[in-house]
């Protein structure tokens, strides 16, 4: 008898249609970190200017928070400065209205100092995407620099964690050497540099 209809659900066809799932490079790299974190993994609300549509931020790193302690202490001293004027009347020779103005200007300068230091920390970031590594630098309010390297161009990585403070708080430098003519990229004073290196290694594969 002639075969009028042949079912497409033959075992061989089913086998061919099932593809083996690809092992994602991002497997095991789970989102982590808050708004003011120095170590953000796959941040949901971060985007940089030159980011391509198919590019995903895997790591967004800032200097370890311990590196901010120095300027925070200076800021506290600056905030407390005018309170010392009762004990040390340095501006007592000025008329009352000038004394008040001096205190206002002092607090204005303190505000600017705190805000600038915070901006410097918050926007000096190191980004690792699924395609490249980027070092975004705003050294001061007038200087901006962006260095980047493709993951494929990375030839070697070196982690340096030296000193008691760095060992205790687990932060250090990660130097990324590239095959390109561009200079090496240095992630300076980032938290958990070994983990960063492991993630980059994983992404390179």
């Amino acid at each position, binding site marked *: 008898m002639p075969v009028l209809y042949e079912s497409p659900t033959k075992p061989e066809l089913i086998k061919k249609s099932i593809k083996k799932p690809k092992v994602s490079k991002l497997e095991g790299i789970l989102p982590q970190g808050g*708004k*003011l974190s120095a170590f953000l993994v796959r*941040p949901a*609300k*971060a*985007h*940089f*200017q030159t980011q391509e549509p198919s590019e995903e931020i895997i790591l967004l790193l800032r200097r370890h928070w311990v590196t901010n302690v120095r300027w925070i202490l200076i800021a506290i001293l600056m905030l407390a400065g005018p309170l010392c004027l009762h004990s040390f009347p340095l501006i007592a020779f000025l*008329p009352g*209205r*000038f004394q*008040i*103005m001096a205190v*206002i*200007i002092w607090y*204005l300068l303190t*505000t*600017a100092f705190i*805000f*600038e230091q915070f*901006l410097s920390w*918050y*926007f000096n*970031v190191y980004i690792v995407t699924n395609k490249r590594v980027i070092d*975004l630098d*705003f050294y001061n*309010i*007038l200087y*901006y620099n*962006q260095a980047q390297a493709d993951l494929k161009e990375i030839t070697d990585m070196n982690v340096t964690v030296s000193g008691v403070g760095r060992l205790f708080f687990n932060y250090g430098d990660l130097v990324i050497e590239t095959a390109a003519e561009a200079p090496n990229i240095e992630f300076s004073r980032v938290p958990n540099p070994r983990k960063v290196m492991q993630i980059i290694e994983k992404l390179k594969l």
Partner: protein
Amino acid sequence: MNMPKFSFDQILRFVLSLNIWDIAKSFVLFGILLYLIFAFVVVRQVNLMLDSLEVELEGLIKFIAWLHLFLVIGVLVFGFIYL
């Protein structure tokens, strides 16, 4: 051109008639004016930074930059009136 001529005596009398605190006031106001330019630069810089990197605290950072600028303008006006 006819330039007004001042004698040394006139100049000396003018200088001696100046109030030291008026001079101080003009210096203070000039300083705040320079600071105002800095505050404008900060607002501009914040915008540039946020263009380069969009982050979660974008709104708050912009607000602080503008607040700082308006504070400086306020201090400048206060200085003009109060000093």
